[in-house]
């Protein structure tokens, strides 16, 4: 019985084709009750189609969507126990904040007094002043509108709450604040959240597990740490911001050689039957200048530029063959070099990731 309880939402071979084009291809996925699961992918990766299938706005070409043992494929959107926060929020402009929040309750024929009580409770839960009840939705700021949209979805009391990149239109600081707030609301409500975004950083902050999508298929599923530390391929590794990628070939046991001749490097683990692939080193594990001396993996290049990133400094080093390498240091261990000088970069074997593709 335990297994059944754990799988809350299950996708089996979910596929959606638009004519010749396959938008979602054979996706298998299990999501547990109460989980915060995020689908991440670049635009065109099929994540929007996927969420439209899940909420019932599109019908799958083949495969099954199963929620708590019930097949949802043929259930229309308005009969599904799930609901979504839209990318553009889709608040009703002709209704005020309170009426927007109460909309699903009104449809469910809940008595007006009960509706109002519930709307007030939701306003409070989402840190909105109670007098917002009578405010027009277009008088609200971006962040307030986000909260109203979330309150309306919560009022529906869905089994699963879907999010279609609702934060993407907001400015950086507000987005950062709302990401945390959303995770707090997930913690408070204990509901199952399925979120889609093109930003792996956003996914990292909020999610219990992340699924990376590319060309309609799920490339990798894992916790934020697994995705960050054990990317399955170059695509996943590069999705999480800037990384140093070297094209390498096997050069012995736990040793690889850069194909451009930058050097031979040690690794701690190697995929089975590895012959050729990519060595990935994150900028923050790279050592620069004197700090690199004595490390088993060393490259040399010219110090080209530096960038202040707030909490960190980033340095760009150019290899003899013209590649750009990035190194990041915290502000209390900044590198003090002269532009144009040849410097050494180094990293420990356990800090690099070797992937076949």
């Amino acid at each position, binding site marked *: 019985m335990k297994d059944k309880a754990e799988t809350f939402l299950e996708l089996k071979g979910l596929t959606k084709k638009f004519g010749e084009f396959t938008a979602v291809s054979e996706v298998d996925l299990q999501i547990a009750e109460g989980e915060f699961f995020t689908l991440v992918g670049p635009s065109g990766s099929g994540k929007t189609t996927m969420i439209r299938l899940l909420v019932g706005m599109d019908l799958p070409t083949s495969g099954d969507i199963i929620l708590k043992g019930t097949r949802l494929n043929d259930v229309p959107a*308005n009969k599904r126990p799930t609901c*979504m926060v839209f990318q553009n929020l*889709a608040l009703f402009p*002709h209704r005020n904040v309170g009426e927007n929040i109460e*909309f699903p309750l009104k449809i469910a024929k809940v008595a007006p007094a009960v509706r109002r009580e519930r709307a007030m409770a939701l306003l409070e839960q989402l840190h909105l002043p109670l007098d917002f009840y009578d405010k027009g*939705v277009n008088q609200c700021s971006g962040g307030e509108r986000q909260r109203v949209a979330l309150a309306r979805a919560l009022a529906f009391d869905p089994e699963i709450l879907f999010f279609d990149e609702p934060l993407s239109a907001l400015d950086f600081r507000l987005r950062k604040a709302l990401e945390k707030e959303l995770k707090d609301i997930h913690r408070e409500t204990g509901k199952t959240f399925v979120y889609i975004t093109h930003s792996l950083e956003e996914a990292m902050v909020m999610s219990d597990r992340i699924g990376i999508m590319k060309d309609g298929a799920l490339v990798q599923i894992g916790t934020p740490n697994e995705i960050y530390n054990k990317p399955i391929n170059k695509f996943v590794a590069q999705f999480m911001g800037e990384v140093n990628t070297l094209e390498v070939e096997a050069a012995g046991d736990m040793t690889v050689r850069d194909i451009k001749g930058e050097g031979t490097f040690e690794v701690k683990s190697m995929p089975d039957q590895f012959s050729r692939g990519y060595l990935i080193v994150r900028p923050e594990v790279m050592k620069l200048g004197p700090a690199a001396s004595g490390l088993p993996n060393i490259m040399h290049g010219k110090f080209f530029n530096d960038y202040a990133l707030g909490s960190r400094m980033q340095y760009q080093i150019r290899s003899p063959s013209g590649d750009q390498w990035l190194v990041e240091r915290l502000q209390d261990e900044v590198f003090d070099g002269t532009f144009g000088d040849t410097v050494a970069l180094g990293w420990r074997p356990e800090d690099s990731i070797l992937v076949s593709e």
Partner: protein
Amino acid sequence: MATGNKSSIWRINPGRLAAIPASVFLLIGFAGPLAMVIGYSFMPAHTFSLLQVPSLENYVSVVADSYYISFFWSLFLASTAVVILFLVCYPMAYGMAKIFGPWANLVTALIILPLLISENIRLFGWVLILLKNGILDGSLKYLFDVSASGLLYTVPSIVLGLVYVYLPFMLFPLVSGISMVPESLKDAASDLGASRWEIFWEVELPLSMPGIMIGGILTFILSLGSLAEAKILGGQAVVMIADDIESAFTFAQNWPKGSVLSVMLIGLSGVVVFLLFRRIDLDQIIGRR
């Protein structure tokens, strides 16, 4: 001007400059005649001069007379036409805005095409169709041995004429009103549990209200002042107020009386429009406020 530059006097705001031709045209073509009509309404009966001593004499005699019957018929026929037009046009407009796709252009062309022909000619076409032993009556008699001889010169035939002639004026505002409803709002309503009917009632209808209002007001005002439909298709069935106004100006040669009736009709239209716009705030509906 702080600079004291003499040439600045000649620098007229280009917006105002561009508005001069339209303002002059409106003054001569709209405000002028309106002022004259209002002026004549206070002149003694049967005069053609605007320089007599003003009095309320005409208003008193019009109110005492039986013109309220014509006003009633005009209001009744116009309201009936607007309601029928809305019921006929909404599904059509919905199709043109959301369903027909490229075919919507063809429908638009088919609806605009008859407008190139004079209204009176088209109404006479209806006379031929509805006439006793006309196209409809004759065909029914020949094919099914059923008579439909009493259709012309009745109140329903006037309503038919109004609906037929003013259809585009309801249809096109509705099309633009319905097009303004974002698809994502319908998706959201459906996602939150609303049925097809509830989506229509809660989202589509209120959000297309600007188009409905404009179509309704346009066709109501046009029908209220219409003349040809009642004369050509109605015969002697009823007299609409526009008919009375025309008779006063032409046949009776009583401009002041015609002016009084005109002023009252304009006032009536104005009150209806004012009340509707006060009750329904368009900006609020579409969320601009």
